[in-house]
């Protein structure tokens, strides 16, 4: 596996007007707060046909026949297509992870099913017509005959002998198996005085962006344009090119305003390919917008790991090693990169601790459920969750304060190479924890907690100290010869100064709420000596700016922002040469101060960027050999990842009679390097916390044993509202990353990666007097109540726990019950 180096980028002084670091309000907002923004579903082209998709009600079945006659006869219906009609597609939906030397099973996954379905909601046919209501009626008239096959939904059962095989060609439900070791793991446990083991179910969740997916395709004059609610328009174009057999020059993909992603739109869905195919076939614009029910069933899910984790330690608390085994439920088919997600858990399996030996064994499994793939945090929340809860348990085992245990094992020297080869760039883990505790006042809480317990009120505090891997990423680590991702992970930027001195900056990233138009404008403004209001940031359109790699993995700032900064610095360098030429000075003597390019020592001689642009675009007197124009590009591929970190603390109160959990206080200190715009950071942290609180307390994608989706709407998939969560107390420290010149790390996923173990640990701390030591998420009132019942040895609690089995007993196909349902509970 390719491992990135720890080369250091020198931080640059922008020299401009000091907009970086300011809490500027967003340039994006005027259109959004007035209802004038344009999301995909807001667009209609003349002659648009609407698509309604016929979906499988079966989780596993052979398709015997599809009768579309009745649907075709309905008024306004223009066409009905099935999988057979799409036989001319050049390729199925690709999955881009092919790790060298590892066999990964990738079944053909077509936009419309061919012969067989593997999950409820799988597209089987599409109806196209002029009336958006009429096509829904027509879709109901498409008659599909199925021959049901046995269903398997539990990943551990799916690995057992005799389980129904979902893809017969492989003879197994195992998707792949690989391991990421580092250090001497056998010695780690041989030398340990204490070993703690846990089994943790990190359940399936949904991204649940409030904007459902939507795609509008137009075929005109031999060219295709797709507008789509996507995080990855550039990647989408490449994949459309492959699947449709069209060259990229004939394809334009636009991500207009996008209403949230959280990873769920880091995807090229079959429906996107389908509307393009239909538009080309029929020569008319075709639009499809998901209902929330379709969204819940067929927008990729996240998490869904069963984690076996073992930590060994010396009696003094020095951890000797960590060994995790991850069973990843992949669903029945893959989309763009699902199987690689648990590998991100492996990247951070050392957490923020100086573990001398680590190992993560990963098994991917097919089940008759929808695909899992990246959802906010993508593998890292699962890792933090298992590490932090196991560290808490180790502390109990050692009779040691859990924070003291953490501090004892914190990594203190940076850059720091972990045993599995990753190099943490920078950090100060004690500092974030110190500040968090200062804000929290732990002693005061412990006094309050004791008093409240006297009165039968159960409050507890839980902590999570975390590190995450962000800024994807160094292509030599991630790419074909490294982990095997079939692509590069650079980012592109182009900074164009217009003739009168205003600026357009193109980024290859593709935001959907993060505020790039503001933050990137601040970066450019400082480097050119203009104000952010004359810097227009353009994104999300493959027909403008260079090819880019879009937005996910907290990469936009650390990779895309760095590319923007470097492109702007190229412009600045050229500007200085022009100024030097005009003012008869040496380029190295030109400095940028408050928007003026002036000669060092003679500030009265100066030019503005507008003056420079005038010279550049009327190239009558440029330095010898210089090209006209003021327009520079940068492709930046980082040398290393970036490693944000922080400390989170949650205080919750448990109603021990009903099991209800309420978060009383939430305090966190995060470090994502120097702030470009603190307002945007706070927003990401707030949202990230609630996303994880959602997983910890409320949200779960549930399938029943027949593979039917039980949580098919927002009635059952319990996204928390404002009324269900409190306000949070946040702060930051700023430890620059040496990886990029901005020193930045990324913050989009940080709080989601940090938060869930803090919430769970706070509940366990609250219930410690009642003997509860473990509960799997989501901590619904009933599960908490059942855990208390079981701990108290009372009758109607769940009989068994999930904690009996160990990692060794789980050889990859060993027995085990799966995620717990309401009938059995998930607690001990």
């Amino acid at each position, binding site marked *: 596996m390719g491992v990135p180096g720890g080369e250091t980028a020198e931080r640059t002084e922008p020299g401009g007007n000091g907009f970086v670091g300011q809490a500027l*309000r967003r340039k994006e907002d005027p259109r959004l707060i007035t209802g004038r923004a344009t999301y995909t579903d*807001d667009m209609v082209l003349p002659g648009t046909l609407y698509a309604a998709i016929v979906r499988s009600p079966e989780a596993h079945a052979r398709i015997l026949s599809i009768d579309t006659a009745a649907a075709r006869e309905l008024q306004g219906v223009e066409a009905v297509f099935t999988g057979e009609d799409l036989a001319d597609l050049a390729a199925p939906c690709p999955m881009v992870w092919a790790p060298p030397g590892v066999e990964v099973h990738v079944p053909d996954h077509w936009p419309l099913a061919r012969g067989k379905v593997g999950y409820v909601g799988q597209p089987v046919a599409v109806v196209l017509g002029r009336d958006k209501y009429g096509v829904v009626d027509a879709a109901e008239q498409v008659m599909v005959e199925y021959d049901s096959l046995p269903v398997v939904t539990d990943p551990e059962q799916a690995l057992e002998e005799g389980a129904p095989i979902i893809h017969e060609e492989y003879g197994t439900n195992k998707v792949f198996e690989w391991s990421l070791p580092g250090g001497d793991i056998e010695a780690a446990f041989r030398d340990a005085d204490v070993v703690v083991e846990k089994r943790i179910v990190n359940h399936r969740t949904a991204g649940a962006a409030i904007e459902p997916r939507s795609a509008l395709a137009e075929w005109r004059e031999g060219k295709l344009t797709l507008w789509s609610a996507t995080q990855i328009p550039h990647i989408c174009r490449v994949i459309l090119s492959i699947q449709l057999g069209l060259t990229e020059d004939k394809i334009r993909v636009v991500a207009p305003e996008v209403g949230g992603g959280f990873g769920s739109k880091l995807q090229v869905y079959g429906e996107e390919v389908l509307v393009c195919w239909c538009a080309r076939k029929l020569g008319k614009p075709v639009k499809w917008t998901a209902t929330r029910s379709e969204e819940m069933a067929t927008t990729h899910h996240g998490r869904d790991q069963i984690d076996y984790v073992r930590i060994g330690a010396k009696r003094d608390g020095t951890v000797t090693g960590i060994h995790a085994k991850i069973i990843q439920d992949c669903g029945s088919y893959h989309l763009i990169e699902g199987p690689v997600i648990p590998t991100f858990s492996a990247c951070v399996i050392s957490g923020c601790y100086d573990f001398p030996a680590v190992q993560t064994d990963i098994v991917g499994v097919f089940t008759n459920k929808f695909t899992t793939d990246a959802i906010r945090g993508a593998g890292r929340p699962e890792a933090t969750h298992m590490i932090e809860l196991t560290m808490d348990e180790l502390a109990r085992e050692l009779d040691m304060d859990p924070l003291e245990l953490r501090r004892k094992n914190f990594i203190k020297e940076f850059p720091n190479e972990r045993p599995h080869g990753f190099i943490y760039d920078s950090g100060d883990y004690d500092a974030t924890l110190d500040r968090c505790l200062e804000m929290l006042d732990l002693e005061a809480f412990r006094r309050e907690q004791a008093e409240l317990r006297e009165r039968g009120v159960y409050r507890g505090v839980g902590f999570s100290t975390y590190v995450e891997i962000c800024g994807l990423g160094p292509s030599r680590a991630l790419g074909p010869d490294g982990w095997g991702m079939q692509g590069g992970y650079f980012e592109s930027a182009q900074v164009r100064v217009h003739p009168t001195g205003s600026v357009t900056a193109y980024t290859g990233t593709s935001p959907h*709420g993060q505020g790039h138009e503001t933050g990137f404008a601040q970066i450019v403004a400082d480097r050119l000596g203009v104000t952010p209001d004359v810097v227009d940031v353009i994104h999300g359109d493959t027909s403008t700016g260079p090819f880019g790699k879009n937005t996910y993995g907290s990469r936009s700032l650390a990779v895309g922002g760095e590319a923007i900064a470097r492109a702007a610095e190229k412009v600045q360098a050229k500007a200085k040469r022009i100024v030097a030429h005009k003012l008869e000075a040496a380029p190295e003597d030109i400095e940028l101060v408050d928007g003026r390019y002036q000669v060092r020592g003679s500030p009265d001689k100066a030019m503005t960027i507008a003056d420079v642009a005038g010279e550049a675009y009327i190239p009558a007197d440029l330095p010898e050999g210089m090209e006209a124009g003021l327009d520079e590009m940068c492709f930046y591929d980082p040398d290393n990842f970036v490693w944000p970190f922080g400390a989170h603390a949650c205080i919750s109160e448990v109603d021990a009679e009903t099991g209800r959990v309420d978060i009383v206080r939430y305090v966190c200190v995060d470090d994502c390097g120097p702030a470009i715009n603190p307002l945007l950071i706070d927003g990401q942290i707030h949202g990230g916390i609630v*996303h994880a609180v959602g997983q910890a307390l409320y949200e779960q994608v549930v399938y029943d044993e027949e593979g039917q989706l039980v949580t098919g709407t927002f009635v059952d998939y319990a996204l928390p509202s404002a009324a269900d969560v409190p306000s949070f107390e946040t702060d930051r420290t700023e430890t620059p990353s040496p990886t990029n010149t901005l020193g930045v790390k990324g913050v989009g996923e940080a709080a989601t990666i940090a938060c869930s173990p803090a919430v769970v640990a706070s509940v366990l701390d609250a219930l410690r007097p009642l003997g509860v030591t473990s509960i799997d998420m989501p901590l619904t009132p009933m599960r908490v109540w059942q855990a208390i019942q079981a701990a108290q040895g009372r009758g109607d609690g769940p009989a068994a726990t999930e904690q009996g089995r160990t990692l060794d007993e789980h050889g990859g196909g060993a027995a085990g019950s799966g995620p717990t349902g309401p009938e059995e509970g998930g607690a001990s």
Partner: protein
Amino acid sequence: MSASVRLEVTVNGERHVSEVEPRLLLVHYLRDELGLTGTHVGCDTSNCGACTVHLNGDAVKSCTVLAVQADGAEVTTIEGIGQEGALHPLQEAFWEHHGLQCGYCTPGMIMAAADLLARNPEPGEHEIRDALAGNLCRCTGYQNIVKAVQAAAAQSRGGQGQPAREEVTV
């Protein structure tokens, strides 16, 4: 298909007369017939509130109202409460306090908040959170939304209460 029904409705102060299918949802009437696409659809079960508009002054979920039910009524959408240059205090406050990220839930959130402030000009945090229980946001974690509503309430009361954040405007 059923006979269409005559609908006469005033939207953002403008009278519209249309013939509509009885099953046409108000949200689709606003978006598809009138082109008022600021009102969004986020779910199909009246949970998310992205489609919130005012019907005769009350906040309602326009995905759960038939267009024909608005016959004779006055409807106000996000486009009707303020525009750039003449923002509603809530729009101003959402901007000022970073009460939005992707913006998809924002129109509904602002319309629900306006309903609250019309009933209760001085809501506390708990009251604000309760009043917004029918509006889901996945981006903001709600904290800055609550702050924005508090600020708008203070602004509407004559600038007392919480001072506006000091900052540079771009």
